[in-house]
């Protein structure tokens, strides 16, 4: 501690571990606070959540300077040091993709804990403990460079989420929680088998037992197609359930509707991204042959597109606000998977940006629904109307987030969708053409919702006395709104952060594609030089 630079370097070397375990430390500390002392618990939990966000901030400049360098950054640990007997290691590291998702996680984690201040009145201590544990679990998924470690976090994180839904959820919480747990577990156990296959394959190829992801990258693509397709499917089921892709999505509405607000925010904002992250981190680079197989790809893209349209259509007819938002997630995540399985730089870049954006905007949407729910204890759309007159600030923020969610330019949602669709178009016009329907329907269901809730006259007497947002609530939204605008206006940093990992990924999956090389002739034609007059 004595010498500053030394300390800083240490922190830099272990920054990921610090980010990862700070929430867990918070949970451990909370264990020792008496459970009747709710105020102290709240303050402590919020402090840790905020601290969790703050310690992740130094990552931004540190990552920024090396954003174009290849490989994983901030790598910690050596392969096989955790459980040497099986070759599993405590190994963390991030690239651009995981960096963005980690920042999203820390931010949303803080916001959702902040938003629970009043919403959670019972069993406060347990709530915050589980939430902080959940935070660590999610971060671990994005940081792990060891397949085993990844799997442990992947599964361990289910438990706190399950409890958050199951204990603090709505009337059908048990059904929803069990469904969530079983469904996602079903996927992940199959993935475990896939991981083990890769593990043995790597051993047969190299004679070394290891779960190190960078090592497995080297051998897994050599698996012959007949096996790889099954492996791909095993992984696919796990990730598709998590995303959720079209026929595997039914746990999502139930989970969302029953979960407490903060749980929904985290569920939509972060948990779903684990599925897409899984596709990017594992499915694509491990099984390039399968992914690029025309039939497989057609199925993947087909499911994505069906998800986009189907999710939007189902959203359109929902009577429950939260369910509507939940189905809209299906639609939005359909865009993410579409981008992923377009397998080109644009599609994947767009997909990651869309994931971040979805975290921001849908997270905000769930907060928005939560605000009304807290005041009125109902989410029936029919119960509302004319809220604009009663809660103008709230209405404004809602409008912004709705617009962001439907992909209005200059707000964040557009950037991702645009890039994905451009990527999809390059692969197939039909894909883009069909997916665009989702963009139209997004406007339809969101605006219709807005109309029914916010427009009109207040004809339900219960709504007359609703009070507008409190400063704490505004504080919850503020970062999201600012980010929505910031990303919408100046997304270049995101593109730059994603450029290297995405290009590398595409290079792995489709070596035929030349990346990072612009043909000389496509430079802007000389006929119209982009000059500035003086």
């Amino acid at each position: 501690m004595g010498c500053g630079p030394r300390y800083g370097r240490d922190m830099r070397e272990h920054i990921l571990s610090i980010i990862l375990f700070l929430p867990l430390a918070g949970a451990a500390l909370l264990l020792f606070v008496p459970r009747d002392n709710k105020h102290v618990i709240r303050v402590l939990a919020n402090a840790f959540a905020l601290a969790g966000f703050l310690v992740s901030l130094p990552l931004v400049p540190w990552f920024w300077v090396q954003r174009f360098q290849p490989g994983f950054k901030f790598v910690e640990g050596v392969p096989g040091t955790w459980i040497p007997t099986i070759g599993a290691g405590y190994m963390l590291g991030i690239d651009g993709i995981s960096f963005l998702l980690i920042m999203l996680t820390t931010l949303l984690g803080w916001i959702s804990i902040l938003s629970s201040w009043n919403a959670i009145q019972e069993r406060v201590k347990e709530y915050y403990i589980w939430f902080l544990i959940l935070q660590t679990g999610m971060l671990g998924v994005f940081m792990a460079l060891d397949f085993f470690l990844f799997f442990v976090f992947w599964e361990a994180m289910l438990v706190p989420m399950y409890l958050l839904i199951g204990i603090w959820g709505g009337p059908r919480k048990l059904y929803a929680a069990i469904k969530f747990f079983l469904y996602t577990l079903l996927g992940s156990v199959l993935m475990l088998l896939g991981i083990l296959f890769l593990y043995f394959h790597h051993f047969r190829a190299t004679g070394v037992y290891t779960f190190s992801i960078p090592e497995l990258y080297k051998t897994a693509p050599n698996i012959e197609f007949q096996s790889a397709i099954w492996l791909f499917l095993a992984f696919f089921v796990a990730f598709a359930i998590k995303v959720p892709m079209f026929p595997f999505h039914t746990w999502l509405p139930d989970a969302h509707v029953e979960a407490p607000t903060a749980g929904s925010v985290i569920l939509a904002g972060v948990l779903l991204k684990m599925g897409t992250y899984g596709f990017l981190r594992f499915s694509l680079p491990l099984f390039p042959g399968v992914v690029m197989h025309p039939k497989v790809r057609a199925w993947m893209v087909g499911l994505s597109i069906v998800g986009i349209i189907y999710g939007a259509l189902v959203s359109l007819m929902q009577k429950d606000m939260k369910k509507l938002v939940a189905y809209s997630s299906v639609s939005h995540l359909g865009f993410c998977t579409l981008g992923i399985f377009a397998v080109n730089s644009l599609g994947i870049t767009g997909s990651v940006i869309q994931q971040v954006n979805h975290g921001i905007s849908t997270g905000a949407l769930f907060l928005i629904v939560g605000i009304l729910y807290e005041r009125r204890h109902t989410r029936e759309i029919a119960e509302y109307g004319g809220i604009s007159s009663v809660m103008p600030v709230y209405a404004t923020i809602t409008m912004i987030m709705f617009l962001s969610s439907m992909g209005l330019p200059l707000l964040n949602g557009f950037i991702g969708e645009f890039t994905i669709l451009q990527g999809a178009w390059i692969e197939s016009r039909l894909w883009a053409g069909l997916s665009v329907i989702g963009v139209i329907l997004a406007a339809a269901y969101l605006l219709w919702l807005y109309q029914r809730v916010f427009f009109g006259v207040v004809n339900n007497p219960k709504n007359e006395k609703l009070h507008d947002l409190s400063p704490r609530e505004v504080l919850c939204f503020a970062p999201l709104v600012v980010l929505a605008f910031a990303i919408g206006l100046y997304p270049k940093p995101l593109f730059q952060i994603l450029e290297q990992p995405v290009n590398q990924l595409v290079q792995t999956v489709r070596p035929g594609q030349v990346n990072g090389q612009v043909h000389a002739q496509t430079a802007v034609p000389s006929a119209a030089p982009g000059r500035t007059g003086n």
Partner: protein
Amino acid sequence: MPLTLSQMFTPTDYFVALPMIMLTLFALGILLIDLIVPDDWKWTNAVTALAGIGFSAYSVFQIQRTFVQVGPNFPGQPGLRNALFVDRPAIYFFYLFLGGAAIAILMSVRYLETEREHRGEYYALLLLSVVGMMCMAAGADIVLIFIGLELMAISTYVLVGFLRRDRRSNEAALKYLLLGAFSSGIFAYGLSLFYGVTGSTNLLDIRRHLTQQMLYSSGHPDAVTIVALLTVMVGLLFKIAAVPFHQWAPDAYEGAPTSITAFMSVAVKAAAWAMLLRLLLGGMTPLRPLYVPVIIFASLATMTGANLAAITQSNLKRLLAYSSIAHVGYMLLGLVAGTPQFQSAEGIKGILIYLLVYTFMNLGAFGVVASLRRREIIGDEIDDIAGLMSRAPIEATLMLLFLLSLAGIPPLAGFWGKYFIFLSLIQTGHYWLAGAAVLYSVVGLYYYMRIANAMLVREPAEREPVRLGFGNAAALGLTALATLWIGIFPNASIRFVNWVLNLDRTGPLISWLR
């Protein structure tokens, strides 16, 4: 001219029998001391029993140490004219038995006091049954194994029926005894046929003979051998409670005193496994192509039957009984792993680790159930555990830990059992079995979560806080710590199992006896 006893038996013979001798001595001691101990001081019997277990464990440790000193190529210590063969797996199982028994004893004190059946015989029988288990795990002679089995079984019958005034306990004991006796009849019949086809009661000779027979018959053993194998396997599958020979287990588990349920579900089960591994891998290794289909059938039937049956249970102990049957189904898959001719070492490793972690988590779970027992309240229905989180947060949290571990959620110990089983299946190409097993593990989660839901979500029916005795607290603490520790840092356990299987140095030692 026959040799005299001192010529026949060397100090080594006593050395390898020392763990059993210690337990016997202390058991007898308890029987004597119990006569003079006043009713309020019956807990001293538990202390004595624990001391016996401690001494016994120390002797096991001494045996283990001589192995280390003698060197890695020395797989085991035969003694008592090859009747006892204390090899590394036997030592492993000794530790498991002793650990399971110790924790069960810790749990028993308060439970027996509540039941007002606190008597010294209980501990004596417990210790003597461990002696039986040791014979099963280390016996190299089917006579010894059989008699060890009977010693364990008869002690357990009595222990199950120890609550004489409780009709459920009576019935459980009677059922267990009738079925147990019936199955050991079948088992003994099979052993007699084995003796008939091989001409020896020693496992080494049996194996030698069977190998030759398999060689001569080019892999198609004659019908009598098959019947011998199958009848023996019925006995074995009965003891480990595999479907369709499992039905005694839920009844016995439900009716028995909870501490004995815990003991049965870990130590007795581990002993049955030890015997099964002894016989199948020690004596009947050449018959592997024959028994694998039976095992596959039993495993699938067990996973299906037990998981489905567990779903509808409303009694905690019964539910946990079915859960422990289901775990047997997973473990059996470890025996399947490998080619038709050769057993995969990873599979056995899976079984051993499974038994280890299972010991802790299951003891823990039953420990929590035992702690719910109070006067007038049996506390073993799911309704009784409702709202436990608000009544007793620590117990509830621990229970949650154990349940999740039983469900195989990482990073808890239970995960590692399943992990190595799946690993071995994947390694040897049994993908479909692995797939079925993981799907059943998802079903398993459902009923564990039913308990968790009741505990965490439902409102308590009563507000009376749960009081833990010292012994119970210690038992829960130990098991929880082990569940977490093995879960997060399994390396030591894996290394120990590697040592047990001789995987650490010279490659797998699958044949139990060399």
